[in-house]
């Protein structure tokens, strides 16, 4: 059986969600336990049930008919961030993601079927708002105006945001400070100087609504590096929001829309600047085994993270000195899922005057993990605190991360703890260096 979540729907013949998993994949785990310390939830809780080896043990016990996928077992699997740090740590090459993702998807589907309840947050906010940058921007308009008029600060100080319940409350707390995003992205931008490559740019949804300024920075950096850039119409969300909320069909629709929107023969690469989207798109070929699979695989083969792409192309050295201490946080979906750790560091090292300090526990998730911080706020905040403490220990003024989710999570931590720090994307900083400008920093903590 292949590990496709398509099989989740057929999960009714006895072993429950375990039917969605290829049993052979369990056998790669030799139970050595070397993964445990890489797992954020094991590190926090110290319980095998909340570590990768234990979770595999539990899923296999379900597959073997020893246990049912319910009660505390379900909770332990839900609490997994799917950050895949354990895959990096695992010497045996266990594909943990390919175990836990289909298993959880089938478990959720089954559970939802049992409950028969309408989850408005999932159906409306996750599936009808997040994946559409335009709708999301519209929904945020009152907040943006409140922020611009200075009313937002008052609302925060009065503690009114705490009145917003549950996942909506978590979501509101994650809204970043206002930044001017800039105009709509055009359909084409020409290379500066000699043309070295032609790329297509993936825009995404939440990334475009919240980090359009980073998109512009990325596009300018690509232009500086001699790239013609096309930005095709018809592209949408990468599908990760659906996939991680156990909506395999919704994810497949997004994937196929993207596959149709990009002309693969016309470009050298599809460049994406947020790790969560990049990881999802690189796995388009794995998730669904149907007639479209070869086209999805061909698409996936062209996807490049912007750090990876520029590093391979050879960065045109940026001229502007930025004499600051910064630190770089490895987004799980870049470091663990795509195994890209050195390229962003090599790019940053070329900014004159910049000192990049090693971040302790850089490989441990910040707690964002897609929409995890909305669903599991308790653990997400523990991990967020842990991340911020490590950042502060480096003495850096800027923390860099190549993923929208991490940036939102870390920005919230910075804001709530009032640390004199900025979080930004490596492309934001490279862009400043090309333009010989300086980042705007908050004043260092006074007395």
């Amino acid at each position, binding site marked *: 059986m292949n590990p496709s979540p398509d099989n989740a729907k057929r999960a009714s013949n006895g072993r429950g969600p375990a039917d969605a998993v290829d049993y052979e994949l369990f056998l790669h785990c030799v139970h*050595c336990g070397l993964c445990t310390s890489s797992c954020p939830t094991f590190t926090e809780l110290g319980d*095998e049930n909340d570590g990768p080896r234990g979770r595999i043990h*539990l899923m296999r016990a379900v597959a073997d008919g020893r246990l049912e996928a319910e009660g505390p077992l379900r909770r332990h699997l839900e609490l997994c961030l799917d950050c895949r740090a354990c895959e990096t740590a695992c010497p*045996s090459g266990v594909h943990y993601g390919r175990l836990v993702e289909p298993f959880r998807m089938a478990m959720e589907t089954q559970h939802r079927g049992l409950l028969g309840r309408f989850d408005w947050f999932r159906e409306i906010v996750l599936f009808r708002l997040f994946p559409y940058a335009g709708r999301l921007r519209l929904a945020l308009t009152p907040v943006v105006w409140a922020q611009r008029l200075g009313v937002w600060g008052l609302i925060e100080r009065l503690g009114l945001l705490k009145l917003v319940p549950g996942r909506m409350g978590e979501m509101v707390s994650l809204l970043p400070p206002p930044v001017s995003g800039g105009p709509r992205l055009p359909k084409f931008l020409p290379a500066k100087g000699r043309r070295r490559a032609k790329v297509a740019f993936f825009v995404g949804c939440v990334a475009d609504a919240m980090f359009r300024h980073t998109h512009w920075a990325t596009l300018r950096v690509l232009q500086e590096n001699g790239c013609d850039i096309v930005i095709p119409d018809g592209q949408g969300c990468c599908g990760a929001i659906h996939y991680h909320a156990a909506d395999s069909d919704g994810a497949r629709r997004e994937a196929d829309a993207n596959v149709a929107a990009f002309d693969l023969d016309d470009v050298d690469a599809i460049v994406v600047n947020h790790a969560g989207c990049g990881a999802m798109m690189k796995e388009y070929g794995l998730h669904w085994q149907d007639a479209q699979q070869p086209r999805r695989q061909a698409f996936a083969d062209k996807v490049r993270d912007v750090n990876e792409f520029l590093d391979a192309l050879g960065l045109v050295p940026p001229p502007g000195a930025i004499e600051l201490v910064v630190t770089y946080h490895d987004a799980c979906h870049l470091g663990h899922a795509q195994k890209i750790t050195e390229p962003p560091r090599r790019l940053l090292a070329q900014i004159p005057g910049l000192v990049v300090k090693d971040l*302790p*526990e850089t490989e441990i998730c910040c707690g964002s993990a897609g929409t995890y911080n909305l669903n599991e706020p308790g653990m997400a905040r523990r991990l967020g605190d842990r991340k911020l403490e490590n950042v502060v220990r480096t003495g850096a003024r800027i923390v860099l991360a190549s993923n929208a989710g991490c940036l939102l999570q870390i920005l919230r931590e910075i804001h709530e703890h009032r640390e004199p720090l900025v979080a930004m994307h490596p492309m934001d900083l490279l862009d400043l260096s090309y333009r010989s400008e300086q980042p705007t920093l908050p004043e260092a903590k006074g007395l």
Partner: protein
Amino acid sequence: MMPTTLSPLVRELRAALGPGQVLSEPSDLVPYECDAFTVERHVPRAVVFPRSTEEVVQVVRLCGRHGASVVPRGAGTSLAGGCLPRGEAVVVMLTRMKSVLEVNLRDRYAVVEAGVPNLALSRALAGTGFHFAPDPSSQTASTLGGNAATNAGGPHTLKYGVTVNHVLGLEAVLGDGSVLRVGPVADPGQFDWIGLLVGSEGTLAILTKLWVRLTPDPADYRTLRVVFNTVDDATGAVSDIIAQGIIPAAMELMDRGIIAAVEEAFHFGFPLDAEAILVIEIDGLTAGLDAQGRRIAEICRKWNAREILHAADAGQREALWQCRKMAVGAVGRLSPSYIIQDGVVPRTKLPHILRRIAQIGQAHGVRIVNVAHAGDGNVHPILLFDERDAREVERVHAASRELLAECIACGGSVTAEHGIGVEKLPFMSQLFAPADLAAMRRVRHAFDPSGCLNPGKLVPEGETRDG
């Protein structure tokens, strides 16, 4: 799921520690049925997460009162079944006691709780110029409490010694719930408690806190990777290097079978047709290191080394060590299950034992690959099998028994660093005379009169309590 009716023991544990520190749901207990030794399994009655020595005391007392056994566990990386629950067992997870309490560079010690992972201490010490020397291959995960309980070794024990050489003091809970505190100040006129408790595998006490020695980082390293066409040449070189009076910091051997797995996992660029590779590290003051490196290279060439690579920088050195330390886990790429053995022989017997291991594997139809801390004669034959094939499992056990018996026949032992656990228990009567075992049982009885601490490990049950 309806909560099952709680037993009186579980109810009292929950009252003492709080419900969040006690697991008793059947599904929650399943992951604790074994550690990294998966051949035997037994689901415990409960799992508890004490947060202090006082809470460990409460757990031990309650278990004693209810006749339950107490199985201490950290990261659960034991390869000998040291954390296997036996009978009505309560697993005591020390993973929530994970603070580095003090780092004292002037006096060169650190105080840690038992659940601190070995690597977490290294991280806490980064940049100070000091480190904790014992570096078992499991160090990214395994806890210092577990390292002490098993007297863990590692590649660098060749020069720096094993865990017991790096423990200055300890706090431990005995079988009756009393607390023993030893050191860290050297106190003449005392028994060597540390020598006794370190390596006692949780059978004499549960270690809760340690004072550990900090070792200055070496000023410089040279790390070599040497490729040989035969295992005999590689082991010959090892003995010769030591015979010439050179004590490298580490001298590690990997054979052809394991090289294939490691190469697939880490893509370091190991030659797949090599029969054996040595990773040799020397450290100390920069002056003299190059000369020593040249001497080692000369000796290796005399033993027909076909290629000698000097690690060019810290990154390459780290990659080389990652390959060696993750080698065992990488075996998952070769087969669904394995047993890693832990035999030790006099160094000069290395060629003999490795030849015999190959013969034994062939005779039993079992595939065996090898890693070895060659510098101290410690071999780790890894026997590959599929746990779903009962007859193959039987053949693996037979091969294991035979190769360990061969280690004893060579004047060696059946464990150098993994401990006895449950796995090596049957060999104890081959290693020790009945009177010795009886003495061990009496020591155990003195520390743990009710016999509740990690029963069925380390010392085989005697005919009568005092043998």
